[in-house]
């Protein structure tokens, strides 16, 4: 079937389920892109589903970062303390595919006709690098962002939650209103903006937390975007696309893996050209 491309993934939206699949193929099997995993696919699928209807509770299997999911999508992820079944479940397939399904509904897996072949050598090396990073004993010499620091800012990092300030919308939010009162008015920014500047750091000059993967990628690229709601931000570009950057180019922000340290993946928003 012809797929809808959404946040760099293939999506099939049905009344009782949403299928999200990686567009990348290796030896006739779907594989994750260079900075994607089951969590990033699930977030994309949930955000797509949430455009159509609310999701009150969600059950997620092992292998998906429930905290990131909850922060990025503002959904309640069912925990052990919750009674009863969740209204929606996430199902994982072996082949870089995720299904978000209404409780009790039957799923007919979609077969998309979009396939992007990946280089086997690159894919193997990238997988090995992620595995090495994800080892709990792996501590890079990168600037340290602790788990609690990451989680404290997860909402503003993953959903672009900002606040109204004296001079307009401020992102990320501050611990003061900037308006001389105690009330902080939150504002969710639209996940898209235009390029103000960009750079590509050579592999040798990339921050050391990217040291394992930057050589495979030929360096890492960062863009400064002016978000459509006003504030600016800096974001990595997605790993599996090579956009031709220019001033004023419109880009969207999608959830991807940033890096892993101490067995814990730091997720964040990365920029990709709106080209679907």
């Amino acid at each position, binding site marked *: 079937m012809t797929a809808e491309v959404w946040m760099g993934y293939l999506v099939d939206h049905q009344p009782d389920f949403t299928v999200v699949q990686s567009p990348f193929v290796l030896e006739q099997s779907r594989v994750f892109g260079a900075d994607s995993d089951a969590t990033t696919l699930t977030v994309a699928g949930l955000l797509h589903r949430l455009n159509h209807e609310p999701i009150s509770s969600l059950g997620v299997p092992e292998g998906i970062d429930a905290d990131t999911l909850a922060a990025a999508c503002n959904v309640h992820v069912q925990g052990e303390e919750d009674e009863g079944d969740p209204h929606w479940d996430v199902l994982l397939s072996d082949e870089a595919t995720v299904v978000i399904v209404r409780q009790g509904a039957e799923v007919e897996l979609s077969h998309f006709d979009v396939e992007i072949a990946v280089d086997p050598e690159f894919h193997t090396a990238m997988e090995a690098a992620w595995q090495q990073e994800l080892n709990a004993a792996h501590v890079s010499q990168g600037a340290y962002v602790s788990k609690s620091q990451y989680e404290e800012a997860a909402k503003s990092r993953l959903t672009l939650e900002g606040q109204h300030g004296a001079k307009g919308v401020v992102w990320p939010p501050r611990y003061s209103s900037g308006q001389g009162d105690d009330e902080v008015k939150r504002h969710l920014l639209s996940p898209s903006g235009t390029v103000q500047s960009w750079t590509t*750091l050579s592999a040798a000059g990339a921050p050391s937390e990217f040291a394992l993967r930057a050589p495979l990628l030929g360096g890492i690229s960062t863009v*400064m975007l002016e978000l459509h709601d006003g504030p600016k*931000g*800096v974001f990595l570009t997605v790993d599996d696309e090579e956009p031709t950057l220019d001033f004023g180019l419109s880009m969207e922000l999608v959830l991807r893996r940033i890096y892993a340290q101490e067995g814990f993946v730091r997720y964040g928003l990365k920029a990709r050209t709106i080209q679907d």
Partner: protein
Amino acid sequence: MSIRWYEMLRGDALAMVDVAVVGAGQTKYGNHPLGLKGMWAEAAAKAFSSVDGDFQPSLIDEAFIGSLAFGGSQLGNTAALLTEHSDLDGISVRRVENACASSGFAFRDAWMAIKSGQADVVVAGGIEKMNDLTPERRRYWLGVSGDTEWERLAGLTFPGTYALMARRYFHEFDSSHDDLVHVSVKNHLHGSTNPLAHIQKEVSFEKAASGFMVADPLTLYDCCPTSDGASCVVLAADHVAKSLTDTPVWVRGSGAASDHLALHDRPSITQLKATQQAANRAYGMAGVSAGQIDVAEVHDCFTIAEVLATEDLGFAMRGEGGQFAREGRGVLNQGQTTVNCSGGLKAKGHPLGATGTGQVVEVFKQLRGDVEHTRQVRDAEVGLTHNVGGSGATCAVHVFGRDRA
């Protein structure tokens, strides 16, 4: 006009206390064979021996030492560790940290200590040992002074941050990478005759234009080296300074400011508001304008930083910093203001915490006519130092004069 804090504390009469630099010294920058203690001892000894009169370290009331404590080997009580190697036992000491502007602010703190009347003779210095680390550890420490949580997770190091500024600058103004190459060539030229510089070698335009790409559009020749080094200056109240030297260099103005830590939080990324504010305050206090500065040591951690600084400090109009570099207006004795006659951070080197007071060492010597004649600024009467922390979150600017006012 607002009342200065020290006028409120001490009254108008004591507000007349002037502060002079009476001694200054530094190590050679580069791969220094000594560690923290040895480098500090060397810089302090040079500073103390440069004082003309009968000077003993026992005269010193306070010491402020700037350092990022790169490498983390002596993060706590750094100043106390160092000063016992320079005969400063028992006095009040502390480390001052504002990233690359650490000793610019240490100098300001020393100046304020004398202005307040609490001290008569104060040491300001800075130090960094950077080359004893593995490349991986070095990259960690080079990235800790940005907004780590947001900029680092976006893959940015400081070369990357300044690369964003450079590309935007080229887009907004009539400028290209060639202008940055001119900055690099000039500073290498100046550094080639500075025996204390890390890199004492000229570089051709062609070579500087084709360097290894570090962070597009910045190449290796746009980036300062990673240097070890220490610097130390002795400041004195006017009533003491007269007994120590016949040729004091007066601190005529001190200004400092801060800005958002993260580059993306600033309305413009092609100007540093902290520099503009610090400079305006320093100029105002000194009663001089940018056009009266003969010699300026500006913070060129990357070549684009010098282009922006020439505008923010008022040596060039907004958007004309590239042209300033292209026309060679900062080259030794070629224009109104010689910029980075020491070689700047680009060639003299950038031992982070040592840079600010290292700039003061150069201006002190220039205004006294004490540098090698090959890089002496002619008839230098008024000098300026400009020390920036990170990508512009903090900045200290000082104006110096051979004359008191």
